[in-house]
């Protein structure tokens, strides 16, 4: 596999894993059963990322405020390294994301993890967004403008 599709997959997977609720990811990971052993290269560490906004949404960046982020790094015994970066302070969440990132680089694991973890989490995220949008859509309004007599 060339590096670009692999990078694209890691990007997508890591994004899906980070946006999933940590407890949900942990339960899917547990259901998966035995996985290859890994060494923790960097114990999950809690830190901050400065969130940047853009002036008027599309202009120059500015520092809007920080968010807590937890990161972890692992290495499989077969050598692949994995990294997890997740919002919040759930160390288990970051470590599992790192382990899955490492496994995503092994062809024999990729399909299984996609089916058992990544696709379900992506579907659940999409369902959450659909519910948000559907509830918002119920509040869509069409105001009537009451023109003054004489057309002022």
């Amino acid at each position, binding site marked *: 596999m060339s590096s670009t599709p692999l990078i694209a997959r890691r990007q997508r997977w*890591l994004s899906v894993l980070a946006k999933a609720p940590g407890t949900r990811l942990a339960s899917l990971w547990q259901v998966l059963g035995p996985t290859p052993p890994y060494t923790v290269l960097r114990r999950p560490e809690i*830190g901050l990322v400065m969130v940047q906004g853009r*002036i008027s949404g599309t202009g120059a960046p500015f520092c809007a405020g*920080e968010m807590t982020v937890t990161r972890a790094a692992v290495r499989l015994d077969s050598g692949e390294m994995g990294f997890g970066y997740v*919002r919040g302070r759930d160390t288990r969440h970051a470590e599992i994301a790192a382990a899955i990132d490492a496994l995503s680089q092994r062809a024999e694991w990729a399909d299984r993890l996609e089916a058992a973890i990544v696709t379900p989490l992506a579907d659940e995220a999409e369902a959450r967004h659909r519910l948000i949008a559907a509830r918002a859509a*119920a509040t869509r*309004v069409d105001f009537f403008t009451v023109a003054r007599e004489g057309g002022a």
Partner: protein
Amino acid sequence: MYVAVKGGETAIAHSLDLVADKRRGDRDVSELSLEQIDQQLGLAVDRVMTEGSCYDRSLAALAIKQARGDLIEAIFLLRAYRTTLPRFGASEPLDTTRMVAERRISSTFKDVPGGQVLGPTYDYTHRLLDFSLAAAGERPEAPTAPADATHALPRVGDILQRDGLLEPPPSRLDGEAGDLTREPLVLPADRPLRLQNLARGDEGFLLALGYSTQRGYGNNHPFVGEIRYGHVPVSFVPEELGFAIEIGEIEVTECDMVNQFAGSHEVPPQFTRGYGLAFGHVERKAMAMALVDRALRADELGEAVTSPAQDEEFVLAHSDNVEASGFVQHLKLPHYVDFQSELVVVRALRAEVEKRLEQAALAQAAE
């Protein structure tokens, strides 16, 4: 000058115990959980995250619980905690156009593409106390309606901008945006630094300043171009990976305010803008921030700087409620030595005045 005091350890320890006791309150009432604060006092959590300048719902909930609901104290606690954490870096700038919006309104265009979506707003409530909330009970789920699956929400600013009627926002700057948490504020500050200051600034202070501009102290005829509130992904490039990944989703409120501008020698008449961005659903704050952001551009736009909201030094130096409450509240600490020296001075002055009056009286009597 403040001279330090010593002692009082036991009394202070007992005071802390008393705070803890008051925090718990009547033991017959069940204790608040952080989840309850997060879920049921969510707007308080949003304010603490915004002004605490740290997006973490459960930390903000903890701070609110510890501060017994004193939000400025909670903001202080969150600010103090963040100083203990390492910085991993800065995110890619948020793309709020990609927001999965819970609310999006424009008061400039009725038929804005994507529609006027009220979302969860208090705007159309009657502000009557709802006594049904005084009792626990089942609450119905919110209704749903078919929605656009692409979540596409064109920006109102882009529509006006296309015709040249609205100034485009300043484009990407060279290098990284300045960061007040890294370097102290130097005046004059550029707009990104001012926006960071305002984003952390006290809602009440900015609300009053924004209000003052509407009442004529630096008026710039604002309209709400657009307010949107919803969920946006945060992208970050970990150095180990070298490519961007989304590390989570956060909720933000954004306000793009559109203001009248008569034009100048260089620029034809057009609408100008002020911008507000806050964590969570903090609409009043985002609006006030946008009003003050625009007011602070007076100099740049060739307007007379005549009012407090336009005075960069005044606004930026007094917007932070952690600094403000620290300096105001330090007055409660023992100032005994300080005050003693003032007492000595005042007594000496009084003695001098009395002596002079006596001498004057004697002189008068002698005449």
